[in-house]
Each structure stands twice: as structure tokens, then as C-alpha cells.
């Protein structure tokens, strides 16, 4: 776990993530400028840092309704504005990037942040980036696997010798600067289907599992399959952390939280994915057995602990800014996380002094 900078004794890590979406507030139909959105994300990371959260990450999406295509640049600003919080991408589309450039960027962010940077590499759910950068969609999987493998190699080896299909060979190449402690934690972003997690196990990488909705028990199947595949491929599952990511919002009551979030999520998904979030599924999300952490602080605490018991995961990251959520609501949530949710989670999941 140490190579991924996870200290099990500290209990479940809690963080925030954003896709960097840039959507109108469905209540007003107004959209803030891209400049304001980016500045607010930096500000959000700052508040999360001050509130003692463990982690903050920013994703890249190269299509309409997004603002953080240059996510590494945004993360550099966040590195400068924060002090203790871990910072990462969620995710970096490694398939269509040059792993050398990605590594240079993130090890630089690691130096700026004094050793707080991580990479989560993904393969893109929307694929506009393939057209934009001139890649062939039929190479979707091979591009991802080859570039991811190279990224891990650069992280492991100071002098790299490599050749592959989608990039010029590297001959005694030294990829610099090196991160503060020699290497970066590099994770794989995976969707809900077990196959995606199993392939992360083949690659010997820790996973970030996206959990938009549905029973926690279904995601447990994916996590179990991942750990089993790690073992079969000669890795020790105890050395590989698991993180989960999903919708989050805290308010006084469940219904208040649902009212505050549903229009943002539904309208936002219509625009970014082409299909809204069915209200029936969203309503079921309030159930303790569902992974969606939307409700009162007490309900959320119970759900996260329930999920932790089931998944045995090391980090949970919350998405609460999707779909044009106003900034003051995000601030209120940080406050609730800092004063109510985080202390309870740490109390129940961290190793006790007398253990």
C-alpha cells in the first residue's frame, strides 16, 4: 500500500472529484463562464484542503459542456493553492495522450505540490477526443493498454527502453523530472463491469471504481473479481488499494438532498450522455443498500460505513458539483463533510490507538 501512499491505519480516505463539467444551472438556465468555473474548482480544492479532506481530483473531457480539457494545468494551479490534500486526475485519458508528456506533467505537479500528485488513467467514456486528436476508435482498447503499460514502465524505470505500436520507440530515454519520492501512485479508472476491473488486475494497477447508482452488493462483485484476478496474476491483493467514486450530496433531510441534486444530475446527464437519470432509480438511491451517497449527513455516514464494511476499500471520492451546482451549495457541503461526516468516518475506520 505504501507505494500508493495509503496508510491503512488512518482509515478510509475521503475526497472530492470533478469531471470539470461546465453546465447550466437547471433552475436558472444560466451558465457561468469557463473562467469562473475553473477558478471555482481551484477554490473548491482549497476549501477541501482547509477542511482536512484527503483527496481532490479533476478529469478531462474533450467535448461540449466541459471546461478542464487541460486538467494537468488546472491541477498545477490547485497544487499551488493547497498544502496537504492529495491531488490527481479523474481521469487522464491515457489512450490519446503521450505517456511521456503525461508523466512529465504529473511529476512536475508532484514537485510543485511537494509530493502530493497521483495519476488515474482512463480510456474515455465519450470518445470525441479520438476525432479531435486523430486517433482511430477501433484501436480503443489496444491504445489504452499499450499506453498504460508504458506509463507504468516510465514510473518504474529511470532509463526507459521500450517499443510499441502506437508511439515511437524509446531508447535509453530518461523521463524527467522525477517525482519527489521517485514514483507516483498510478491507478486505473474502471466502470461498473467486472471485466474492466479484471483487466486492471492483469495490468497490476490499483482501481478507481465508478459507482453511479445501484446496489453496493453489485459493485462488491466487481471488487471481488478484481482482487481474485490480482491473486491469479501473481499480485498480492492486500498491496493494492481500491477507491470508489460516486454521487454525493448532504442536506438536512433525504428529500431535501434529492430535490437539490436531481435536476442537476438529470439535466446534466441529458446534455453530456444523451440520456437523463431515471427518477425511479434516483429514488431508490436513497436506500441504505444503494451506493448513491445523497441524503442527510447521518444517512451518508451510515452508507459509507456500510460500503466500507462491504468493499474494504481505502478511499471514497464524492462528486457533488455536477450539472451546474451553485458554488455556495458546495461550500455548505464542505462544511458538513468537515464537521459531521469526516470525523465519524475516521472514528469508525481508523485504527484505534489501543488496537
Amino acid at each position: 500500500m505504501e507505494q500508493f501512499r495509503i496508510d491503512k491505519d488512518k482509515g478510509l480516505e475521503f475526497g472530492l472529484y470533478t469531471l470539470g463539467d461546465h453546465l447550466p444551472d437547471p433552475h436558472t438556465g444560466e451558465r457561468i463562464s469557463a473562467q469562473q468555473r475553473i477558478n471555482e474548482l481551484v477554490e473548491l480544492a482549497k476549501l477541501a484542503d482547509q477542511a482536512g479532506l484527503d483527496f481532490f481530483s479533476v478529469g478531462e473531457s474533450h467535448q461540449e459542456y466541459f471546461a478542464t480539457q487541460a486538467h494537468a494545468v488546472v491541477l498545477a494551479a490547485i497544487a499551488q493553492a493547497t498544502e496537504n490534500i492529495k491531488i490527481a486526475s479523474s481521469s487522464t485519458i491515457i489512450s490519446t495522450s503521450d505517456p511521456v508528456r503525461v508523466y512529465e506533467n504529473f511529476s512536475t505537479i508532484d514537485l510543485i505540490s511537494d509530493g502530493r500528485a497521483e495519476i488515474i488513467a482512463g480510456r474515455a467514456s465519450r470518445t470525441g477526443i479520438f476525432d479531435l486528436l486523430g486517433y482511430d476508435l477501433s484501436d480503443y482498447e489496444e491504445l489504452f493498454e499499450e499506453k498504460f503499460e508504458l506509463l507504468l514502465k516510465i514510473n518504474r524505470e529511470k532509463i526507459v527502453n521500450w517499443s510499441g505500436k502506437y508511439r515511437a520507440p524509446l531508447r535509453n530515454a530518461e523521463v524527467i523530472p522525477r517525482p519527489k519520492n521517485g514514483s507516483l501512485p498510478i491507478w486505473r479508472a474502471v466502470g461498473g463491469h467486472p471485466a474492466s476491473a479484471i483487466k486492471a488486475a492483469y495490468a497490476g494497477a490499483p482501481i478507481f471504481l465508478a459507482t453511479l447508482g445501484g446496489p453496493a452488493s453489485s459493485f462488491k462483485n466487481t471488487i471481488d473479481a478484481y482482487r481474485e484476478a490480482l491473486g491469479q496474476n501473481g499480485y498480492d491483493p492486500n498491496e493494492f488499494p481500491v477507491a470508489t467514486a460516486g454521487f454525493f450530496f448532504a442536506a438536512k433531510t433525504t428529500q431535501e438532498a434529492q430535490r437539490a441534486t436531481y435536476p442537476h444530475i438529470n439535466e446534466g446527464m441529458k446534455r453530456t450522455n444523451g440520456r437523463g437519470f431515471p427518477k425511479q432509480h434516483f429514488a431508490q438511491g436513497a436506500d441504505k443498500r444503494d451506493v448513491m451517497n445523497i441524503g442527510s449527513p447521518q444517512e451518508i455516514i451510515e452508507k459509507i460505513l456500510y460500503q466500507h464494511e462491504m468493499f474494504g476499500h481505502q478511499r471514497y471520492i464524492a462528486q457533488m458539483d455536477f450539472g451546474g451546482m451553485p458554488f455556495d451549495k458546495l461550500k455548505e457541503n464542505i462544511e458538513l463533510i468537515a464537521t459531521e461526516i469526516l470525523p465519524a468516518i475516521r472514528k469508525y475506520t481508523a485504527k484505534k490507538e489501543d488496537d
Partner: protein
Amino acid sequence: MKIVGLSGSKVGSKTRTAMNYIIERAQETNPEVDVTLIDLADYDIQFSDGRNYLDYTGDTKHVTKTIMEADAIIIGTPIFQASIPGTLKNIFDLLPVSAFEHKVLAMYATAGSEKHYLILEQQLKPILSYMKAQVVPAYAFIEEKDFLKKEIVNDDVFFRLDRLIEDTLLLAKTYQKMLEEKEASYGF
């Protein structure tokens, strides 16, 4: 309410002839409804390569987006080799999982042989159900002999198509009301 008439073939005239009648009649009897024709013969649509439908461009994006924005869709299709044409199946392949959730889907077939009567029941309906459509139970079946020089010549066909339009609108309006009531009950 938005209704799309989807004519599913690039070949022949029977399906389009029946669809022309449906579009005209549906608009005439329901002036408050927004009726749009999509005849796949008018578009150049690429094969599905698995991407999100919003990531296509040109005709492919226009057609899939129009379908996704509809409340009800009447599909007309010829029968080729004892099934629906590949052009129509490709439209389904381009759309996301559960694309027809909360949509009402109706269908009719034009065919050269009466032996094809159950093709819609056994082949198209399961696809629509899988995609979560509210399927209008009764469909219309029209044969070669019901057409002459690109005109419908059997009065019963007009009656069948009128009933198909009425059933579609009845189910679409009723479903929307029920859905609104159900969604209001969630309180968010």
C-alpha cells in the same frame, strides 16, 4: 408531445407510402402534436461503432438525436429475408441501452407475403421491449396487394393505420400522465 414516424428501409415504396399517410393523418387529427418524418432512405447513416450517439456527426447524429427526443415513435418496416432490414437494426445499435424508456413505440410492417405476419411480434417487439419501450400491443400488417402505383387501395388498411395512430396517441398521452403523477409522488 413529439412523435416521430420512422420509415426503416432504403429500398422500395410501400413502407414510405403507408408512412406518408400516417404522418398526414396524425398531424391532421392531432394538430397540437409535433409530428416528424424520418425516412432512412433520405439519410446517409453510418454503421454503429459503439460510440455515444452524441459523438456521431451529420445525418447519423441528426437521426439518433431526433429519435431520442421523441415521446412516441411509429416504426414502419418492410420484411427482408424474414426479418427487419439491417438499416433499421443499425438505428437500434446506434442508440444507448434503455433508449426507449418512457417512450411509446408502435409498429407496422409491409410485406410481400402474408407468411411474414408474425415477424414483428417475434423479432421487432423483443428488441423494443429490451430497449424498455412501452410497446403498443396491436400492430398493422400490410401486403403487396394493398398497394397500387404507390397508393393504398384497400380501405381496411386506412382503418388499421387510423387505429394504430389512435392507439399510439392514447398510450402516449396516458403514459405521460401516469409518469407525471408517479414522478410527482417522489417529492424531488
